[in-house]
Every structure is written in structure tokens, then in C-alpha cells.
């Protein structure tokens, strides 16, 4: 994979990429049956443009992960259709998408392989798929780790490094596959505010270099407004877009945008949209999924 660092001027809009547009059309996901039936996602439709950072925001337990898992192919959908670049990955004929390296997930609680070194973790995808020799994959993994400033822990095991570092390794492990879509499920939830800040900047850095669509679940509004081109704010369970907020702050962004009045305004708007749903979810007493 060649470095795709774009000219600074062209970084503003969603990156011009023909890969990774997601169409979610009338998706329904229910668990169980009869009295214990739970509808996690209900008649959910929205579009994510190729190369866009789409932030999905909603209260805990509303069904965000269920939607992401459907895109990743970890479980089926009850009805509706999901397309990537116009191609149906799951729909009425095939309720469950096949998981694959074009849609790589970064998990809520982290899912590095503890028994493989960080380097082996990052090289895992291409090695398993056979798209690179093991040596080539490792070389590529090493340069990716260097890019995120982790070359000196390449030979360590994930258990030996900090959780912030682990998150970066995990994202590198995803990016090495040149996925069309990166699916991030609250990846920074367990990190402290300072580490989060560093992670956000590093993620944007990676994003500017590698064209990829990012589907990012969070319930941290500041994170959402800082990173996203677009916020999809979901209703309390079942998940369905309630409001879509376009974030018109140009990319590339850095910390300075946080103090801008526009940032404040957008935060306020997002807050307004989320508050009711959070109260609804709280009253429903959902546990976080």
C-alpha cells in the first residue's frame, strides 16, 4: 500500500474516494422471539458517503453495535438491506453478510490476539489472506507501526503495553488491509480524556493518509463533533436516525477547532438532539451492550 497523503488543500471535504459508500436501507434487527423479543434496530435508513467519517451517536443499549455487527457480518438482519458501493452485502436474499477484510472492525473492548506480538497482530490480515508473504506483511506492519509511533513496541505482546497503545495497534491492524470501511465501536471508551485527545489526532492523521470510510460509534459528543463529517444521532432503542447533523468545520482539524464558536454551536445542537433519547434510555433502564 502506498502512502496516500493528499495535498493539504484537498483534505477539507470527505476524501474523494470511490470506495466505501455505505447504504443502510430499512434495516431491522430483532433478537429472540415471542415475549423476550428485543428490537435493537428498527427501520433504520441512512447513507454514508465514500471516504466520509460518519459518527453514530446514541444512548447505551440503543442498538448501535447491532447495526455495526450487521455491516461487519457477525450476525444477520431481520429485514432491510445494506449495500457497500452499491453492492448488496446483506439483504432479503442473504440476511447475513460474510465478514471480510474490506470491512474491518475495531472492537469496543479491544480484540488484539494476546498470544501474538504487536507486529504479528498487525501483519495478521495480509498473512492469513495470502495477499502478502509473511515477510512482506511484517515489513509493511513495521512501517505502519512506525507511522503511529509504535515501532519500539513491535516485538512486545499487547498485554505489555498501555491501553492507548493497544488501540493504535488495533487500528493499524485494520488499516493494513486497506479496507473500504473501518468500523469502530466505541474504541476509546475506556481511555482517559488526555489519551483520547492524542488518539483522535492520531486517527485523523491515519485517515488523511489512507482513504477509508469510517463508521464510528460513540456516545461522546465532543469526540463526535471533533472527528466527524456527519453525526447520525440515534433514537433510544430501537436504533433509528433521529437527526443527522452535518459538521461543516473543514478538515484537516486540530485541537484548536474545539474552542471555535461553530464547534460550540454544533455541540449544543447535538446535545439538544441527544438529551431526550438519553432520558428515554435511562428510564428504560437498559444495560450497556
Amino acid at each position, binding site marked *: 500500500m502506498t502512502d496516500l497523503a493528499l495535498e493539504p488543500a484537498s483534505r477539507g471535504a470527505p476524501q474523494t474516494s470511490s470506495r466505501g459508500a455505505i447504504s443502510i436501507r430499512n434495516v431491522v434487527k430483532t433478537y429472540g422471539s415471542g415475549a423476550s423479543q428485543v428490537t435493537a434496530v428498527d427501520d433504520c435508513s441512512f447513507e454514508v458517503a465514500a471516504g466520509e467519517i460518519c459518527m453514530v451517536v446514541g444512548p447505551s443499549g440503543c442498538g448501535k453495535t447491532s447495526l455495526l455487527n450487521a455491516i461487519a*457480518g457477525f450476525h444477520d438482519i431481520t429485514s432491510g438491506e445494506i449495500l457497500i458501493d452499491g453492492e448488496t452485502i446483506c439483504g432479503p436474499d442473504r440476511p447475513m453478510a460474510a465478514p471480510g477484510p474490506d470491512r474491518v*472492525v475495531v472492537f469496543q473492548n479491544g480484540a488484539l*490476539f494476546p498470544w501474538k506480538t504487536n507486529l504479528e497482530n498487525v501483519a495478521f490480515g495480509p498473512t492469513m489472506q495470502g495477499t502478502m508473504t509473511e515477510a512482506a506483511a511484517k515489513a509493511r506492519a513495521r512501517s505502519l507501526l512506525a507511522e503511529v509511533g509504535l515501532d519500539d513496541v513491535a516485538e512486545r505482546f499487547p498485554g505489555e503495553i498501555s491501553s492507548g497503545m493497544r488501540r493504535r495497534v488495533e487500528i493499524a491492524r485494520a488499516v493494513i488491509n486497506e479496507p473500504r470501511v473501518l468500523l469502530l465501536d466505541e474504541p476509546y471508551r475506556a481511555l482517559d480524556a488526555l489519551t483520547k485527545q492524542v488518539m483522535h489526532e492520531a486517527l485523523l492523521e491515519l485517515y488523511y493518509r489512507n482513504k477509508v470510510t469510517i463508521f464510528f460509534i460513540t456516545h461522546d459528543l465532543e469526540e463526535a463533533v471533533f472527528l466527524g463529517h456527519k453525526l447520525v444521532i440515534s433514537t433510544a432503542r430501537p436504533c433509528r436516525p433521529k437527526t443527522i447533523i452535518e459538521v461543516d468545520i473543514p478538515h484537516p482539524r486540530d485541537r484548536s477547532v474545539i474552542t471555535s464558536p461553530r464547534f460550540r454551536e454544533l455541540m449544543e445542537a447535538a446535545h439538544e438532539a441527544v438529551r431526550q433519547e438519553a432520558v428515554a434510555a435511562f428510564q428504560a433502564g437498559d444495560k450497556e451492550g
Partner: protein
Amino acid sequence: MTEIDAKALGADGAVRTASAFPPTPTTVARRPFRASPKLPLSLVGFAAFLLAWHLAVEVWRLPRFAKLPGLVEVFVEWTSTDPMYGVSLFTAEYYQHILVSLKRIVAAFSAATLLGVPLGLLLGWSQRFREYVFPVFETLRPVPILAWVPISIILFSGAETSVVFLTFIAAFFVTTLNTMTGVQSIDPSVVRAARCLGASPRQIFRHIVAPGALPHIFTGLQVSMGVSWFSLVAAEMVSGEFGLGYLINTAYAKIQYPTIAIGMITLGAVGYASSALVRLVGARLMAWRLREIGVGR
């Protein structure tokens, strides 16, 4: 360091849930031995124990204790070049008993491992297979090992095979169950991650399931080793010619009481050593676990 060490390798849950047997030396055990400043205190403990044994049996000759073999008596017999009852550190017979028991353990333990680990992996891996096979497994498991004695004598004419068979089934159940638990304990996200990184089922089995289950497999093997000795001794006492269980049994019958103690001590030592060996191999294969907690570097 020892604090964390014990937690990470010992309190796995597997030991506790999977078997009805005491895991012979777990890691909790090593703590006092490792902490060198406490060594003198442990010496106090050993001294008090040995002194109590000596005083109760040989000096004060307390009622009931007087009949037991005494410390000095046992020590003298054990280290004698010409033991009164024929078994000491300097007799070939002593080593023959140890060797026979060891051979049986090796045969039963290896067979149990070679069959139990693959079966456990399969049970954990395939839900369909588990739902067919596991009920049969669970139906047989509550039957105590020694209750199999008559059946195994009937099935395998000859004491030797039936002793090894009894030892085998005990170890087999433990190993299989712990391996299965090991597979089930793997974080589902890790398997999902491998799937979306493009690993085939075969690759997932080799790169995720097998190494992921390894910690439980090795706790299982340690328990299995303890269980093997438990069953072996019992089986040797019922039927068997030679072996440490047999030695203890006949020593009782021939009223050679010091030999009973020699047999018991030897069993403790050999049992401990074999579990330690399993633990050592496990630690070698799981360098990542040691380094995670900062002792491997």
C-alpha cells in the same frame, strides 16, 4: 511480583470448575517458597511439624500415635543400606516401584492428553458436536473412578491394563473438560476480529482457538496430573503388582509400618515433581502470559 504471578497463572477458574480433584501444586503454593525473607519462618514450620511427629510417636508415645511409624524410625529405614523391611534409598526394589508407577502415569497421562485435548477443542469449537457428545460425557462423568474398577477388570483381563485404564479415564475427563472450557473462554471479539481480518476457519483454529485455549489446557493438565496419581494409587491398592500404591498396601499387610511412610513421602514428592514439570512446560509455551505480567523479561 509473586502476587500477580499467582493470580495470572493460578486463579483461572478452570481448576475450580472443571474437576473434582485438588489441583496439585498450584501457583499459590510457590509464594512462600519464592519469598526468600520468609524462608526461615517456613523452616520453623517444618521443624515444628517434624518435632511434633517425633515427640508424639517416639518420645511421649501418645495413645494411638504410638502405633504409627516414627520420624527417626522412618528416616533410618529410608536411608539404610540394609533396611529392615527391604525398601530404602539404597535398594533396587524402591526404584522399581517408583518406575512402575511412573510408567503407568506416563502411559495414562499421555493417552488422556492426546485424546482429551483434541476432543475438548472439538467440543468447544463445534456447537453441534458438543450438543451430541457432551450429554454422553456428562452422564459418565459423575461416576467415581474407583466405581469403574470391576468393569475395567472385566473389560481388560489383566491387572496392568486395568490400572492404566482407570488412571486414564480420570485424567481424560479432566483434560477434555478444561480444554473445552478453554475454547469457550476465548473472547468472542477475538474470533470475530480474526474473521474480519480474513482468516479461514482452519486458520482461526490454528491461530486463535488453539493458543487461546492453551492457558486452560495447561491448568487442566496440571489437575489431570494430580488426578492421575489419585487414581493410580487407588487402583494399585486394589489390583496391581508393583507400584507405590501396591507398596503401601503390602507394607500394611506385612506390618512394615515405616515402609508405609516411605511410600507416602515418595508419592508426595513424585506427584509434586510431575505437576511442576507440567507447569514448566506450560510456562514455556505461554511466554506471552508471563511477559504480560512482567516476569518474562
